[in-house]
Every structure is written in structure tokens, then in C-alpha cells.
């Protein structure tokens, strides 16, 4: 079977607008959650978010490109910048951007261009006019993301492209889909990952009205506290995580730097409830087992799990049960962490940014911490790497996501 390796990483995150900064802040337990600045959060119960800060598109693209990109939604700007860094990291040179190469772009996004979209809706409801909004389709629909990526990054060559929108698991699913497409020989190299910029009033109010988001937000940095007894909901965030995956021989031939190998992918549906996870955690556990089978490794070789760990009362308990369901007696030996304790929950981008964290954990032999974990929920009784990073030699790492609609996903990464 063909092997699929990771050759490039790129990220725009609430704790750093490149992968090095992101990683440094992850292992130092730095929170990227602050009071919202994108819009006035006075009316809302939750008043914090994981915003991208100090981001300038000019830092990543040339003037002529910036002129074109400025019409795009924020999520696309983050995504393009992350992809540009990932392509540079993977040493993708112009000679690879030709028709004879089998390229793919598979990206996860759930909300779509809601900033441009909501501005569009506001305009037509306030002005009571339908006409006069040029470029609305391109700036806000999810299928248009591919157009931006191709024209800005791939030199308009032909490629296989797909968007996936499985809620909070979209980034994980996009990577898993791309991994299988490369492994099966349908494509040789691909830009995969997720992008999201959901910090807009309507999306925020949709989650706030049902009490899904953190309620104790006086100290923003402590609002996202997965597995803690104090947790009261997730913290909405934005960002983009991009991974370049390619067939092993393809990467070796061109002398690319290889981070390691994507080993396994599992996906299923709980069919339990649109938002609440199945309390038993069975189907999420089954997704992990499917990924383990796909990877051809054994349970005891998984040393680290980057959990979904969304900081909602229901998720963290059911996820703990899911890990126990899948790993049995090995569950207690696994170093688990939740990236969301630091960056919040960037929906479709979450899975991709968490997978990047897991890749770097394996490469550097360090498990980043779950911060804000001083008062552990007694029902969450596994090793979540509380508050401080831990040095550990890791054989295989897993990254899990669970989304609304009952989607469960799991990815496994290891050495070649």
C-alpha cells in the first residue's frame, strides 16, 4: 500500500500566526482567549473568543495578490496564508505546479464566509435591496474557497478539489479524506486542512442562545477549561490549519522534509442527537478503533491523544468514556490533552490545528498541556496532561474530533 507522509505545516491561530509561534505557546500553556473585539459582545452571555490578532495579509502575499485577496472572507485569508506557509515548509517549487502533477485540495469549513455573508444579509435587510452586492457569491460560499486556493496558490492548474463541512470535525475529515485519496493513488500531493472565521454576531448568538458557549468569562484566559469541574461551554475561535500531504516516494524524490506518516482515519455517526454527544461515547470510541485498524497498529502503541476536549459539560465526560471504550486498560497510560484549552474552538479549523499539534508532539517528544485544569471533574479521570507540558517519547499519536450532527472522527500519525 502507498504511504502518505506530511511534508509541510502552516497555521494561523489565536496563539500565533505561524506554526513555530503556535507550538511555543502550546507547550508554554499560553491562552489566546480574550474579550471580543470583532463586535460588541455586551448583549451576549459569553463575552470572549479566540481571535486571530496582529494578522496582516500583506505579510504573506505580494501587493498584486493582496489586491485580489482583500475581497475574500477572513477565513479564506487565514487559510491562504496558512497554506502559503505550508507550501513553503514543504519546499513546493513552481516546477511542481504543473498539469502532470496530481494535485488535490481538500478543506474543511463549516460556517463558510459568515463575515461577508452576514454583511450581505444586513445590507439587503437594512437597505431593502437585493441588487448591488457584487462578488457576494465568491466571498461567502464554501465551494468558492477552492477558487481562491487554486488561483492564488496553484497557478490555476487542474486538480481534484473538495470541501467538507462536517461541523466541528470538518478539518479532521478533510485530512482523512485527503489521506485516503493519496493512499489509494487518486492524487499524489494535496493541500488539506481547515479554515474558519465564525466570530460574527449571528453565529455567536446562535451558540449563545442555547448556552453552548462558556458562561464564566470574567477572566477570559480561564474560560476554556476542558475536563475541569468549572467548565461551562466552549469558546468560539477562528483560524486555519493547513497540512501538505504526499505520497512517500513523491516526497523522497524531491527531497522534501518529512514530518512522519499519516497512518489511519476513522469516521462515523452517533445518530444520537443533533448537538448532544451520546453519553456512552461508544461511536466516538468506534471511530478511534476504526482509525487504529486502518493504521494497522495496536492500541497500546498510541501514546498521545489530542482530544476534541471542547470544554462543554457533556462532551468531556462522553469523550473520556469513549477513550476508555476504545482503549480499555491502556486508556490510563495515554497522555491526553486539549488544544482548545488554549485556542478555543475554531470549528472547521479545529481538527486541522489539533492534528498539527499532534504531529509536532510526536516530532519533538513533548505533549502540550491542557491548561486551566486545577479542579478536575471526577468523571474525567484520565491523564489530560494538566497545566504543564510533558516530555515523552511518542510512538503513535491520535487526534479526535466530534461534531454536531453526531459526526465522530479520528486520525492517527506516526513515524515512517
Amino acid at each position, binding site marked *: 500500500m502507498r504511504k502518505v507522509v506530511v511534508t509541510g505545516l502552516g497555521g494561523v491561530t489565536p496563539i500565533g500566526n505561524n506554526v513555530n509561534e503556535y507550538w511555543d505557546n502550546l507547550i508554554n500553556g499560553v491562552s489566546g482567549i480574550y474579550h471580543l473585539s470583532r463586535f460588541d459582545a455586551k448583549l451576549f452571555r459569553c463575552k470572549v473568543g479566540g481571535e486571530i490578532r496582529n494578522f496582516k495579509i500583506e505579510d504573506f502575499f505580494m501587493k498584486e495578490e493582496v489586491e485580489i485577496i482583500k475581497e475574500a472572507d477572513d477565513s479564506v485569508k487565514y487559510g491562504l496564508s496558512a497554506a502559503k506557509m505550508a507550501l513553503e515548509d514543504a519546499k513546493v517549487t513552481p516546477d511542481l505546479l504543473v498539469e502532470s502533477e496530481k494535485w488535490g485540495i481538500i478543506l474543511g469549513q463549516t460556517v*463558510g464566509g459568515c463575515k461577508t455573508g452576514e454583511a450581505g444579509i*444586513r445590507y439587503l*435587510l437594512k437597505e431593502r435591496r437585493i441588487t448591488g*452586492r457584487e462578488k457576494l457569491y465568491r466571498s461567502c460560499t464554501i*465551494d468558492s474557497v477552492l477558487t481562491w486556493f487554486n488561483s492564488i496558490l496553484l497557478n490555476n492548474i487542474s486538480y481534484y478539489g473538495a470541501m467538507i463541512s462536517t461541523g466541528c470535525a470538518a478539518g479532521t475529515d478533510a485530512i482523512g479524506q485527503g489521506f485516503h485519496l493519496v493512499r489509494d493513488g487518486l492524487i499524489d500531493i494535496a493541500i488539506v486542512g481547515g479554515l474558519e472565521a465564525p466570530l460574527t454576531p*449571528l453565529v455567536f448568538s446562535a451558540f449563545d442562545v442555547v448556552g453552548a458557549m462558556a458562561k464564566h468569562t470574567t477572566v477570559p484566559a480561564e474560560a476554556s477549561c476542558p475536563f475541569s469541574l468549572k467548565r461551562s461551554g466552549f469558546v468560539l475561535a477562528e483560524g486555519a490549519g493547513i497540512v501538505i500531504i504526499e505520497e512517500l516516494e513523491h516526497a523522497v524524490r524531491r527531497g522534501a522534509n518529512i514530518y512522519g506518516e499519516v497512518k489511519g482515519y476513522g469516521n462515523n455517526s452517533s445518530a444520537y442527537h443533533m448537538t448532544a454527544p451520546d453519553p456512552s461515547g461508544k461511536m466516538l470510541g468506534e471511530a478511534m478503533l476504526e482509525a487504529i485498524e486502518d493504521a494497522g497498529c495496536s492500541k497500546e502503541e498510541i501514546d498521545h491523544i489530542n482530544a476534541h476536549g471542547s470544554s462543554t459539560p457533556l462532551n468531556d465526560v462522553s469523550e473520556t468514556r469513549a477513550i476508555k471504550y476504545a482503549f480499555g486498560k491502556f486508556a490510563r497510560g495515554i497522555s491526553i490533552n486539549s488544544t482548545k484549552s488554549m485556542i478555543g474552538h475554531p470549528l472547521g479549523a479545529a481538527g486541522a490545528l489539533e492534528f498539527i499539534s499532534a504531529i509536532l508532539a510526536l516530532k519533538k517528544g513533548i505533549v502540550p498541556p491542557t491548561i486551566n485544569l486545577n479542579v478536575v471533574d471526577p468523571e474525567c479521570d484520565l491523564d489530560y496532561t494538566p497545566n504543564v507540558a510533558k516530555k515523552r517519547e511518542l510512538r503513535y499519536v491520535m487526534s479526535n474530533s466530534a461534531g454536531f450532527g453526531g459526526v465522530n472522527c479520528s486520525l492517527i500519525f506516526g513515524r515512517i
Partner: protein
Amino acid sequence: MNIMHNNEKVVITGMGIVSPLGSNLEEYWGNLRDGVVNFGNIDFSHLGITDIPVYKAHFVSKKKPAGCIPLNTKKKMDDSVAYSLIATKEAVQDAILYDVILNNPERVGVVLGSTFGGIGYAEKEYLRYMSYEEKKIFPRVSAYLSIAMFSCAAPGQVSVSHNFKGKIYSIPDGNTSGIDSMFYAIRALNSGSVDVMLAGSFEAPITPFCISSLFSLGKLKKESSENFCCSPFSGKNEGFLLGEGSGVLSLEREDFARKRGAKIYGRIVNYQSVINSNIISAGERCLASLFKSGGIGINEIDFIVAYGDGTQTDQKEIEVLKRVFGKALTTIPITAIKPITGHALSASSSFEIIAGVLSLKKNVIIPIRGVQNMSLIEETKVCYAKNIEKHKLLKTFLIYCIGFNGKYSAIIVRKVSE
């Protein structure tokens, strides 16, 4: 790319539809043959919007779907999602999947695609949001908004209501979603992790926001003097009128379907999808590879269900077919059904697959409506199914769709012998 890499054969065993031509297969086929058009006027006057550049659209009859979905369920979701639930229900019924679902729910999966997802729901709630914002009070929007507005609402609702615990994907792939959903389904079936996949697409784009964004793309027809969505291949390039609905197909591996004695509509011979900003390059590459990797000759195609949306894409579409089929294009009938279904974006691709499959079954090619008196693009070189329906023994058809983003996806479906 040949997705049939391990020689598994995937067959269609059930179909379900909600469309402007009817909300079940029988009604749909009847109206497709009779060329019945279900038109309505677009009215946004309750929002004070009067500059509607487009007056008409093809609507789903609101009476029947409402009867299928309990009201308290309906208020939790966008119309598009309700359509997908109804279409899935019919597909499950048509394929008689009850025992399979009951015994092995984790072997049944779902993949649904859409362009706009639950945007209509979001628009209504935005109006509410603005009123709270004005009063400076807590925006008490609908508690269902977070599960209604995203496109993953449809596969989520479908999996929850039918207890599908296998693969689940939501693919916001634009116009090609219906065909692309087949690809996800086939790959899931070939991986052996599921036995049945429900695959399809859904859309309810007759909303101010969707019309605003499509109008700015220059795709919508302004005048609608004729009672048709568009005049494909007429060279008039007037654009199209919107439609809405959902189409869902049940797919299984052939051995599984045969073992449980399922009725088989046809086998999916191959799939291919290519994106290029130049749609002619994308189409040419897509079809060339579709035939090559599928080991099929162009002479095996009995008819083509074209995209035909009545815009400048028509010309490019025909150019692609000319390049791939050459002289054979004078003998292979080409049909397009958008004139009577309306362009339901993502959902149209499923409408068209279902129309093609029903044509196979009934050995009838539906003509392109509303273009009888027009001269069509390169008519001497292309065999348009123009005037009357053609009766012919049909075995294999090609269907392709074109996205506004330059995506060209195609599948070939073949009748199987019993």
C-alpha cells in the same frame, strides 16, 4: 483516477426526490415526461424588498412536504433540510432498507451536499437578531439556529432520524454536489466499512440572499416571458431561474444488493472530477480520464444528461463534448431538464441523475423543453433531444455537472442484467 480500483461494483437500489416537478418519483417522472412546469412568483414584499430582479422561480409544492414532516420537526430546520429528509425517506422506502438499518445501523451511512445549506433559516433569524440589536437586549434568536443554518444539518438530521451510524459526510461542493456525493458513497462502500450509503444533495435557494449573490454572478434570468427556467444551448445566454428540492439515492455494493434481493436500477461505472478555472480544460480532462480509467468507449454511451443552464457555460459545455466525442456527437442524444425543474443548484445534479436513471429504466429520453423553435449551438454537429421524447433501448448514460467554481464532475451509469 479510477475509483473502482478493487473491482467492487456499486449499484443504485433506491431513489427519492422532492422537486418542483413533484415530491415522489412517480409524480416527478410523470411531470418530466409531460413537461409540466410548476412556476410561482417570488415575493419578498414582507421584507420591504422591491428591487427583485427576478420575478419567478420553480417552487416545490408546499402542501405535500408539509404533510410528510411534523410541524414541530419542521420548525427546527431549513426547508432544504426538510426536503432532504423527505427524499431520504422515499429512497429508504424504495430500496426497502428497513431490515438492513434495523440489524446493522453502523453499516449504513449518509453523504449530502449543498451550496447554501440552511441559509434561508439564517436570513430569517438575522432579521430577528437585528431587532434585538436595535433594542439593545439579549438576542434571543431561535434555539435551533445553530443546528439549522449549517449544511451539515442535513446529514445530521437524516442520520439521527433514520439511525444511520456508518459514514457521515457533508459536502458543500456547489452544483456538482449530487455527483460528488456518489464519489464519497462509492469510496465508503469500496472500503468495506459500510454496506449502504444514502447519497444526494439538497437546496432551497429562493431567498433574498441567494438571489442577491447569484444575481451578482450574472447567472439569473431577469425576464421570464416563457414558462421555462432557461433555454439551454440556444445561445441566448439569458441565465436561469431558480428551483429547489432534494434528491437522494441509495447505493450498495452489487453483491450485497443481490444477496438481499434488492431491485437494481443500474451500476455506477465510473466517476471523475476535475477543477480548472478554464471549464473547457476541466471538462476535457475529466471526461477523457473518465472513459480511459473506466475502460469504456464513447460509443457505449446511449445518451447524455447535460448541465445546460442557459448561460455562457452552454457554449463551453458543447465545446467539451465536441472535443471528447468528436463525430459521435451527431448520434448520441443530449438532453437537459433544467428548463422544467429550474436550477436548484446542488439539488439539480441529483434531479438529473434520477431523471437519467428513470430514463434507463423506461427506455425513454426526455426532450429539452422550451427550445423547439430555437436554433441551438452547432445543431448540425450535435444530436439534441429537441422536440419529442425518444423511445430507444437504453443501456448506458453519461451525466456531468459544472460548478460556478470551475468544477466539472461526471459519472457513467449502466443498466445491469437481472
